Each structure stands twice: as C-alpha cells, then as structure tokens.
C-alpha cells in the first residue's frame, strides 16, 4: 500500500508535467491551429534557465522561478515575432509557420548545445527532494486554475475562445488577432518552460530532454482532447499512470515504457480521435 501510494504521487507529479506541456500545445493550437513542435525545446530552455539562475548564480528559488517564467514569456513572444507573424501576415498556408517553428526547434537545441557542455546539469529542488512531487502538483494546480479562470471568467479569455471558434468573425468583431496569437505563444512558452523547470531536478537539464517531453505532452493532449483546458491535465495524468504502472508491474525492460505513449496515441486516434473531453 505504501508502495502504491508513493507510485501514485510520483505518477501524479509526472502527469502534471505532461499536462503543462499539453497545455502549452493547447494554448497555441486553439486560436491559431498551429502545432508547435518546439514546446519540448522550450521546456529544455526553461530547465537550463533554472540551472543557470538557481544552481550557478544561486538565486533564491521564488525569484529564480519568476525570472525563468518572465524570460520564457519573452522567448515565446519573440518566437512568434520571428517565425510566425511574418508568415501569417503574408497569408502563407498553415504548414509554413509549422515548418519555420521546426527550424526554430533546431536553433534552440543547437544554441543550448553550443553554449553548455554536453553533460547533464543539476537543478536544485524547490523544497527538498521528498517534497518535489507535491511542489509540482501544487504549481500545476495553480497554473491550471489560473488558465481556467482566464478562459471562463475574463473578457480577454473569451476573445481567445472566439478566435478559436471562428478567426474571421472574431477579427470582424474587433478582436486583435495578432495580439491573441502573440499572447498564446507567450503563454505556451511560459507553460512549457515551467514544466521544464519543474521536471529538471529529477532528470537534470540536458539539451536532448526536449523531444521525449514533446511526444508525451502531445499524447496527453490527444488523450484529453484539444477542446478543453481540463482535458490537457486529465490526459497527462492518465498517460503518467499508464506509464508508471507499466514500468512497475509489467514484465518488460524499463526502456520499453517509452513505447506506452506511442501505443496510447495510436489507440486513441483509432478509437476516440476527439479525446476524452469534448469542446463545449
């Protein structure tokens, strides 16, 4: 029982990480339709921000965390400015910004790999090793409650929803499309960077950590459904429990647990392509 409780807490914590990455995808897909593969790389940048500020310069944790968050919002905004806005303004097909963001993914990863030595970089725990899981769960809950309130209760959030439902109609109602897009990218980078910072004490910051996170986050998004914010968290939790239970109880090598997201992804695409939660 003790064993199972520990497993549940650790699965819930990694589920929160996947949920944050899925949220990052969702924030950008909903209003723009753009799947941004670079979210995993953003998480990696967030983790390296944590290494630099918290391990190297030894800033206090809350200050360092806030600085990383602000920095990531800037990174997201800048990415949108460089790789998305010129293409959207030109009326290029949707594929163009997605490919440009793929180029940015490589730029992010290689820029980090050039600037830091290739070995893993340690990032300190927020409150100590035994409390990290609870810290992750608490921060993720705050983020999701905040985002949910933003979409449900604020006019700005409603304008995001309007853009998601019908871009042209929203623009005709006087909603500033480019501001919504910029904000959605900044928010996506913030969520992804936070996920990277939270997961990094357990796995250490490494320049190759992005792609697995991007795959897991996306699987969580497909499980939960693209339509609702809660879906991202639900999908993340389900994926993490499936993964950890497989590693713990199934008689296969631990490396194969990386196959769980792929199998779940295929299963959901076949059986329930809209995800568990439908859009309202």
């Amino acid at each position, binding site marked *: 029982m003790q064993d199972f409780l520990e497993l549940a807490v650790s699965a819930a914590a990694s589920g929160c990480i996947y949920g944050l990455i899925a949220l990052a995808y969702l924030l950008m897909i909903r209003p723009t*339709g753009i799947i941004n593969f670079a979210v995993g790389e953003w998480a990696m940048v967030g983790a390296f921000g944590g290494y630099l500020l918290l391990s190297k310069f030894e800033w206090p944790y809350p200050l360092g965390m806030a600085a990383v968050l602000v920095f990531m919002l800037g990174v997201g905004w800048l990415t949108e400015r460089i790789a998305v806005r010129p293409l959207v303004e030109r009326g290029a097909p949707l594929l163009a910004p997605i490919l440009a963001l*793929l*180029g940015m993914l*490589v730029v992010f990863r290689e820029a980090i790999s*050039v600037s830091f030595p290739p070995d893993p970089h340690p990032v300190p725990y927020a409150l100590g090793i035994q409390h990290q899981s609870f810290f992750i769960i608490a921060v993720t809950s705050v983020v999701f409650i905040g985002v949910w309130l933003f979409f449900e209760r604020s006019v700005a959030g409603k304008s995001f929803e309007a853009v998601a439902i019908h871009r042209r109609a929203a623009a005709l109602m006087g909603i500033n499309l480019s501001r919504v897009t910029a904000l959605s990218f900044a928010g996506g980078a913030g969520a992804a960077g936070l996920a990277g910072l939270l997961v990094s004490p357990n796995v250490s910051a490494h320049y190759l950590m992005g792609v697995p996170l991007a795959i897991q986050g996306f699987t969580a998004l497909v499980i939960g459904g693209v339509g609702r914010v809660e879906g991202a968290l639900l999908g993340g939790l389900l994926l993490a429990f499936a993964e950890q239970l497989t590693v713990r109880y199934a008689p296969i090598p631990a490396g194969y647990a990386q196959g769980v997201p792929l199998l779940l992804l*295929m299963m959901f695409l076949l059986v329930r392509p809209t995800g568990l939660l439908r859009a309202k």
Partner: protein
Amino acid sequence: MTSLLRWLGAALLLAGAAFLLSDYHNDVYRKLLLWVTLALSYNFLFGICGQIAFSHFAFYGIGAYSVVIFLFQFHLPFPLAILLGIALCILFALAVAIPSTRLEGFYLALATLALAQLFIVVLNEGGAVTGGPGGLANYKLPEILGTRIRGPWYTAVIVLLLLGTLAVLWRLDCSWFGRACRAVRDNPEAAAAMGVDVARTKVIAFTLTSALAGIAGMVYAFVDNTVNPPIFGLDNAFLLLFMVIVGGAGRHAGAILGAALLFLLPFVLSPLIGHHHVLVFGGLVVVAILLQPRGLVGLYDAIRRHP
C-alpha cells in the same frame, strides 16, 4: 527510346564517376547518393503529398536492420530476407498511417515522431538480436551467383537504386496518383469533391515512400557493413526534412539540390565552425521559409524569369 537512352547515360555517368574516385571519396560519394535517394522519396511524401513525417529515416533503419537480422541472425536466404524486410516496412507504415488519417491536421507528424523515438529504444533494448547500443557489425554482403560485389561496383548498385527510385517516383508523379497527391496537399476538400479518396491517397503515399526508404536502408547496410542506433536517430530525420525544404519542396530537382548541398556543406563548414553546422541548417530553414518558400529551385526560377 530517347528517354531510355537518357536514363542509361545518367547511369553510366554516375556509376563511371565511382571508378575515378579514391576509396575515401568513393565512401563520401556513396553516402551522397543515398541521401539523394532518401530526399527524393521523402520529397514525394512531404513535398508532393504534403504530409510531414519524421519516420522516413526510421524506415531507412528498419530496412537496414531487418535485412541484417534476417540474413545473419536468422540465416534466411538473401531474396527472402529482402522481401521480409520490405514487408516489415509496409506493415509498420500501415500501422502508423491508418490511425493518423483519422484526424485533420498534423497528427501523422507526431505519430511518426513517436515511432522514430520508439525505434531507437527498441534498437538499444533489443539485446542480442539488434546488438544493443553497439549495433551489429562484422558481416559481409552475401555472394550472388558466386561473386561478391565490392568497391566501385557497389557504388554502381547505389546508382541503380537512386535511378530506380527516381524512375518510380517520376512515373507516379506523372500519373493520376501524383495529381491526386498534389490535390490532397493543396486542398483536401476540393480533392474529395473531385472523387479522390483523401485518406487512402495519404496512406498509400506514406506506405510506398516508407518502403522505398526501407529498400535504400537495405543497400546502406552493406556500405559500412555496420548498423547501430545513433545512425538512425532523429537528427537525421530533421536533416532530411531540411534538405527538401532548402532545395525546394515538391520538385525532384529541389530534393537532389537540397540533399547535395546540406550533405556537402558540413565538409566545407567544419574547418570554420566545427560541429555546429546543424545550427546553421536550422537558421537556413527559417530563412528559406520566410524569404523563399519554394527553396533553391524557386530562387533559380525567379532569377531566370527576371535576369
């Protein structure tokens, strides 16, 4: 008749070059030819049919690994090993492509990203069958009719592979299937209204190009006579995509140009910036999409139109 002569001339020219090169340059030349082959088939999938997939290089790996494993671990006869390898590629391709067509958008990209990642995991965890992280080595191309193809003659085999791939894709591109693929890329709704089965076209294009990548992988297995996981990693999958984008997606000439440029660029850049050429490639792709979405071929067209 003239077109047949043209193919023959190209084959003689490309294969003849191999006999003039030193051993080292022959090796570089072979890999260049293989990259061009892969870029051509990937261009059909991405440029002509409009699907983003990251599994092309994984299928190259599945082809290479399967032929080596069937031949030297299970000791099957050579033709059977090749057929089983192709069947395996087709099976995996169908398993990924059919669920991915269920939703609009770019679900294939993520499903194939997951597949490519899983492939590396299976290679590393495969124990004696896949050789684990060290891969498989110390095998030789089996003798065919009492002779073993080696040296420049093997380069000639790769030239045949390249021209065969190009011929297949060329014929397809000119057929109704090629036009259906372009229609699916440009406007799926209109294509469906014209009677094109969008999902089936996508699945067939994905399966076919993946099988072509698998065949190229089988040829690759005997170039270095070793297969190991790092060769088939995601980096190369991205590189392949970048080759097609920089060269000019949707055009065979673009794929050839992009593959040649991005394959040869590191040889020029290495003395200047060391091993950071991937950073340059990433920047190059962003610049290409922002400034000239039709790639180098598009640039050439623009210059020719307004000299």
